[in-house]
């Protein structure tokens, strides 16, 4: 029975010790510890939330980048296409122009050649006529020195005229 009879001394000292312990621990241990744990958990929670937000933001940015890339690519393609068209146009134009220019030059050259030819012909004719006149003059002079021959000549000339 002694074991299950609470002794007043132990009750007395336990009350004192326990209340003392409770008050001291409450002020100097539990308050700072629980506060620190709560704060740490809060900061971990915040960090996780922020990480989550960052992840969403990141995926948003990635999507945006993708979009940008896509549009950039499309734009590049467009620009390339335009450039190609432009190039083709330029080349075509240049070709046409060159062709035209060539044609013009050829034309010019031909005209020049014609002119030159004409001039040359004219000169040649001129010279030929001069020469022929001179020759004719010489021949005539030679022919005319002989009466018979003059007659032949006239006859021949007349014959020729008739033939014409």
């Amino acid at each position, binding site marked *: 029975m002694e074991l*299950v009879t609470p*002794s007043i*001394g*132990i009750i007395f000292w336990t009350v004192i010790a*326990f209340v003392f*312990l409770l008050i001291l621990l409450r002020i100097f*241990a*539990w308050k700072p510890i*629980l506060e620190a744990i709560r704060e740490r958990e809060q900061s971990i929670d915040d960090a996780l939330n922020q990480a989550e937000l960052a992840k969403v933001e990141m995926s948003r940015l990635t999507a945006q980048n993708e979009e940008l890339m896509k549009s950039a690519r499309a734009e590049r393609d467009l620009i390339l296409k335009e450039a190609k068209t432009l190039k083709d146009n330029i080349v075509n134009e240049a070709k046409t122009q060159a062709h035209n220019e060539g044609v013009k030059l050829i034309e010019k050259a031909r005209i020049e050649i014609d002119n030159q030819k004409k001039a040359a012909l004219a000169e040649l004719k001129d010279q030929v006529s001069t020469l022929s006149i001179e020759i004719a003059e010489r021949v005539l002079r030679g022919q005319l020195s002989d009466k018979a021959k003059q007659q032949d000549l006239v006859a021949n000339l007349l014959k020729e005229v008739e033939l014409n």
Partner: protein
Amino acid sequence: MDCNHVFDFKVKRLIVVVALLSAFLSIRSSAYAQTDSLAAVAGNEVPSTEVHAEGAGHGAPGGEEKFEPTKVIVEHIADSHMWHMWGETSIPLPVIVYTANGGLDLFSSAHFHHGKEDYKGAVNTYRLVEDKVKVVGADGKIDEAASASLIDISITKNVAAMFVSVVVILLVFISAAGAYKRRTGKGPRGIQSIVEPFIVFVRDDIARPNIGHKYAKFMPYLLTIFFFIWINNMLGLIPIFPGGANVTGNIALTLVLSVATLIIVNLNGNKHYWKHIFFPDVPFWLWPLMVVVEVVGVISKPFALMIRLFANITAGHIIVLSLISLIFIFKTMAIAPVSIAFVLFMDVLELLVAFLQAFIFTLLTALFIGMAVDEHH
């Protein structure tokens, strides 16, 4: 009373099963200890460090004294005015007694010379009879009337051991709190890593599920009883000084703790709680019966806490001492390895029980507080 959430987790269910099993074992073993003592034959005391270490070796050095396990065990389980160290060496503890006729007397228990001599204090002459302080009258006989009025608030072995544990707890947790202040916002390290899991355990597995969102207010109390009981249980398992006292296996201490729980629960009871007690939801003609049942329930819940802790820890000490006593009952060293093996097993089990009892006491306290502050009825 909805206790289902106590059994929510498999682990908890397992713990409860182990607890019941160990309680059952302990009770059975204490019963055996009693029968053993009855059947015990006279025997010589074999000198053994094991017994001295357990603080149970009070046998006379002469070797012819009859070995009585019950006496040895009860001596250990009960309180004492000496803190027995080994052999004949004991630490004297202060005796503080108050008698109605004269007042307070304070002296060292060394003056009693293990009960062989009387001590004449300022007020009365005292004698130690079976570790109880008695008043000795002028005729040299014990003055029964004065002894009955004597209030003994000595620093006994249990009180001293409790002070040791209080100092240990304060040192551990105040230094941990210092570490928390120094390392704000950083991860736990050193002593923090040891205490934090248990603090978080008390908060997340005991307070929060049972009390709900108002748990924060009760955290200091729950943490304090949890660590107070646990550390005292563990110190009680250490066979040498400054452990070895049966602090939490003392009904006075468990009485104080359960009364503390009773007060906290009832001071925080809200109107639903009181309505449930005095105006239960039953037909009116059942009220007289139900009110009695409910009021008894208010008392019986902390009463069960008191008995549970006391019985578990005391039973644990008894079984360990009974196993050690086997060596002396059989009067042979051959049984020693068997005894030691069983003691080792029991000590490991007691280590579990030490935690478990602290856990159960705290859990049930939280549960009672939760029922008192619950808003949805």
